[in-house]
């Protein structure tokens, strides 16, 4: 027993003396190295629940179309496509001679054919496979809705006199995804969907080799050697919770644009470690916190830090119209109070937590993001009347306006002696988040629930102090925390009054957001048409719902956007949501040249490394600014977007 520890200790001691052997690997410009905080839980690209997994899928699998560096949809595995005169049938011609490769990069016997796209869609359309995003396209692809629910009904025992096999066989007959020949795949839609190409970059439209997935069954995508690859890279190594290595696929149709031959991603959850590794030359890029930026002030690195571009995600302040807190329920139904909140939140102060230098650079004042939805004339949706004004208005913070609206709300909601009309003393039980007593008197008590992270906690404390000061002690914010997931722990069990939240923007149409905000089952409990809000509070706004329904039925983009813009304008005027901050926009330092890779707010192609240029030295902030200016000039020419 004594020998083992002595032996191991001696080994470690001996290794400690080999200091010269350590050190970072020499970095070349055809290798990209970075860290990731969240593990790729699984490699099955139809499941991918996390950003790291999406990054792997985007680079190792190809789709019919992809985004170019301007965000335009351009051919990928499809060489060309045609749209039927009624706009309902989309036919894609595939490139010939494209083969799946394995995890060693060797060409397999399997060619990428139209059947692979049908097989992929067949896989995601079976509820048993639990593919999350199928809901997004269920009402888009012809016959899919019935096919999907027939299978569910059968599994539920509701549908009898048939077999599961028979129902599965209906796919070929009824679902609008067909292989017309070896190299032609056709999608038939239920309604005219001018933005259909943006759907095609979603994970549910990946191809799969049927023989391979049949052979592996449940093991498909659980290791690097249990996948085949059709993208610009193959996964040469994947060590769970450790590292991901992607190597250039020499058989890829566009191999000449795969500029980084190796992509090496290492797991590290600490931003301080990430920055140190970058400074030691172990990484090609790193993101920094505001504190870290201040920490490197005065060093050679400071002028190399720049703010990355904003994303399509919008964070907003989101009130709960179905709250169990009677004081808040009374106030939030009052438009003057909502407006008081809308104008009473100091964006600059709160955004300074993320960017103390230029906080308003992160601000977004519209629900739908700019530069993502363009009509048939290339006009941005956020330039439509009704939304344009909100975009141009800038910071809505206006203390005088906020106090004025609050005074009006008090006049309407209280008896003048501090008693809130119709609200009795009670215990608000939102355990385990919070439990407190309300007395039906001013100050109004409202629950703001936030995550346990330090940034989120600081924001919550600032918000609390802001409300206290703005409304002169008449609004008291009770803070509560969730541990892991805001939806499961807070929104779903209805344990909040105010939340800071967001929704992913799935496809290039405002309905991607409005559909979920106003839908009947009220995912956000927003009062526009939330079933929960209606049930609990007897309150909703039919005018907006009608506008959104009309817009959703409109097939000419410019007319469609006009109606959506009217709806969004009303949502903002009536302060149902308070848009606050855009996603993205983080301090970055790196050798990677921005605007050289695919761009776009939807699907997975925005994660592609294709075309990435890496330099020997970190780019300066001034250089990135020049590149950005040039990019937007080029973009205007490329897409004809009116800015």
């Amino acid at each position, binding site marked *: 027993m004594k020998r083992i*520890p002595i032996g191991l200790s001696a080994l470690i001691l001996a290794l400690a003396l080999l200091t010269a052997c350590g050190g970072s690997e020499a970095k070349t410009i055809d290798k990209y190295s970075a860290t990731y905080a969240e593990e790729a839980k699984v490699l099955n690209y139809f499941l991918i629940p996390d950003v790291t997994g999406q990054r792997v899928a985007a680079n190792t699998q190809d789709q019919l179309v992809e985004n170019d560096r301007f965000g335009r949809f351009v051919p990928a595995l499809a060489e060309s496509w045609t749209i039927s005169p009624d706009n309902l049938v989309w036919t894609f011609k595939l490139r010939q001679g494209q083969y799946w490769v394995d995890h060693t990069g060797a060409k397999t016997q399997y060619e990428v054919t139209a059947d692979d796209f049908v097989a992929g869609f067949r896989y995601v359309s079976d509820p048993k496979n639990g593919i999350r995003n199928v809901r997004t396209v269920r009402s888009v692809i012809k016959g899919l809705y019935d096919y999907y629910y027939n299978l569910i009904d059968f599994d539920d025992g509701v549908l009898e006199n048939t077999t599961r096999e028979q129902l599965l066989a209906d796919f070929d007959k009824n679902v609008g995804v067909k292989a017309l020949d070896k190299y032609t795949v056709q999608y038939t839609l239920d309604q005219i969907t001018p933005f259909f190409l943006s759907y095609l970059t979603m994970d549910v439209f990946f191809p799969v080799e049927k023989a391979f997935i049949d052979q592996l069954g449940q093991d498909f995508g659980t290791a690097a050697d249990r996948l085949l690859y059709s993208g610009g890279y193959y996964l040469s190594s994947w060590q769970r919770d450790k590292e991901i290595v992607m190597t250039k696929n020499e058989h890829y149709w566009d191999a000449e644009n795969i500029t980084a031959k190796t992509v090496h991603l290492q797991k590290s959850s600490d931003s301080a470690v990430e920055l140190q590794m970058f400074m030691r030359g172990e990484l090609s890029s790193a993101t920094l916190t505001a504190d870290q930026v201040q920490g490197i002030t005065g060093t050679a690195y400071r002028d190399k830090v720049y703010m990355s571009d904003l994303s399509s995600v919008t964070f907003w302040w989101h009130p709960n119209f179905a709250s169990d807190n009677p004081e808040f329920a009374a106030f939030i139904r009052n438009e003057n109070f909502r407006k008081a909140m809308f104008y009473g939140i100091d964006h600059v102060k709160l955004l300074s937590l993320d960017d103390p230098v230029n906080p308003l650079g992160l601000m977004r004042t519209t629900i739908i993001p700019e530069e993502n939805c363009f009509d048939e004339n290339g006009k941005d949706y956020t330039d439509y009347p009704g939304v344009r004004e909100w975009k141009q208005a800038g910071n809505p913070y206006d203390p005088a306006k906020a106090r004025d609206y609050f005074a009006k709300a008090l006049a309407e909601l209280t008896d003048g002696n501090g008693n809130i009309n119709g609200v009795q003393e009670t215990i608000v039980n939102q355990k385990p988040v919070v439990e407190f007593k309300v007395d039906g008197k001013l100050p109004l008590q409202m629950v703001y629930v936030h995550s346990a992270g330090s940034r989120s906690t600081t924001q919550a404390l600032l918000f609390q102090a802001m409300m206290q000061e703005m409304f002169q002690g008449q609004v008291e914010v009770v803070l509560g925390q969730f541990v892991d*997931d805001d939806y499961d722990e807070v929104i779903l069990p209805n344990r909040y009054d105010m939340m800071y939240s967001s929704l992913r923007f799935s496809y290039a149409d405002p309905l991607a957001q409005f559909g979920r905000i106003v839908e009947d089952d009220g995912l956000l409990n927003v009062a526009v048409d939330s079933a929960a809000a209606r049930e609990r509070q007897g309150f909703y706004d039919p005018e907006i719902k009608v506008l959104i329904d009309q817009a959703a039925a409109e097939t000419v983009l410019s007319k469609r956007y006009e109606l959506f813009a009217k709806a969004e304008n009303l949502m903002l005027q009536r302060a149902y949501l308070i848009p606050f901050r855009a996603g993205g926009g983080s301090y970055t330092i790196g050798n990677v040249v921005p605007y050289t890779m695919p761009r776009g707010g939807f699907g997975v192609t925005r994660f592609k490394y294709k075309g990435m240029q890496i330099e020997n030295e970190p780019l300066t902030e001034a250089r990135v600014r020049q590149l950005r200016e040039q990019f937007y000039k080029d973009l205007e020419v490329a897409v004809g977007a009116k800015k």
Partner: protein
Amino acid sequence: MLYQRLLLPLILFSGARMKAYIVKRFFESLLTVFFVVVAVFMLLRFMPTDGYFDRDDYTEMSEAARNAYLRTLGLTDNPLVQLGRFVVNLAQGDWGRSITVYPRTSISEILLEKIPYSLSFGLSAISISIVLGLLMGILMAQYKDGIVDGVGTAYVVLVRAIPSLIYLFLIQIWVTKLLGWPMLFNERNPVSWILPAISLALPNIAWYAIWLRRFMVDEENKDYIKFAVSKGVPRRTIMFKHVLRNAAVPLVQYLPSQILLTVGGSLIIESIYSIPGLGGLLVYAIRQQDNPLVQALVLIFSVLGIFGVFMGDVLMVLVDPRIKLGKAAKSGGHA
């Protein structure tokens, strides 16, 4: 396997009372494992099913689709049926598949990937801490109230008083910078193995040192040592043949548990050095409500913990001559 390798020789080469004690404690341990597993299994089934989905699932999947998904996981069956299925599958070596942490991946595959990392670092750290900790404890006891004792005590106080994240992080940043080592563990680069192993050993070195010092100082004050001193037995002989031998006995009891539980890994060390071990996996699996993974990990940890205690007790009986089975029990003593 455990029975064949460890228990059988113990039973074969021990006396009748010892045999009876080992068999009795073994079955008590098995019973404890059984209750732990059943309790955890049933408690997990009483959790709301929301935990099987993340937020995107809820926003993207309909109620019917969510139900269909739960059905495919077998979660809509009676909990007792699920327990029966778990036991039958386990008997066939099938640990099931992860649901939310590593969706659809075989749990045995996950464990086989991760355990070797945690085990290697854990055993290295224990080896280092036994060697250095015992050495430090002996020196501290031998030179009690001297400089060595002072330095050793200062080390113990620092390691135990300062939050470990602070000094571990400083070690990672500064030592790697000073020596030009990689910051993260890389199994292809042996130099990167050193700091995690040493960092993992630091608290245990302090633990072994302070307890051994304490037991040795206690022993030194006992009559039989005073008698040996008065007889003129050399101090070195007294320290190593009598004091150390007796002082080490209480530490022996914890050794099996410590060795076995290294399988569990270290949340902090594995996280900061990016070691793909088991550290933190149980907590994460509980938070993600990955029932099959939680069950597997609880089963492994409870078996290791319970048998660690069992082995510790048996070792104590074997190495401590003061413990007499049977006779001592009658006088209300040990065993």
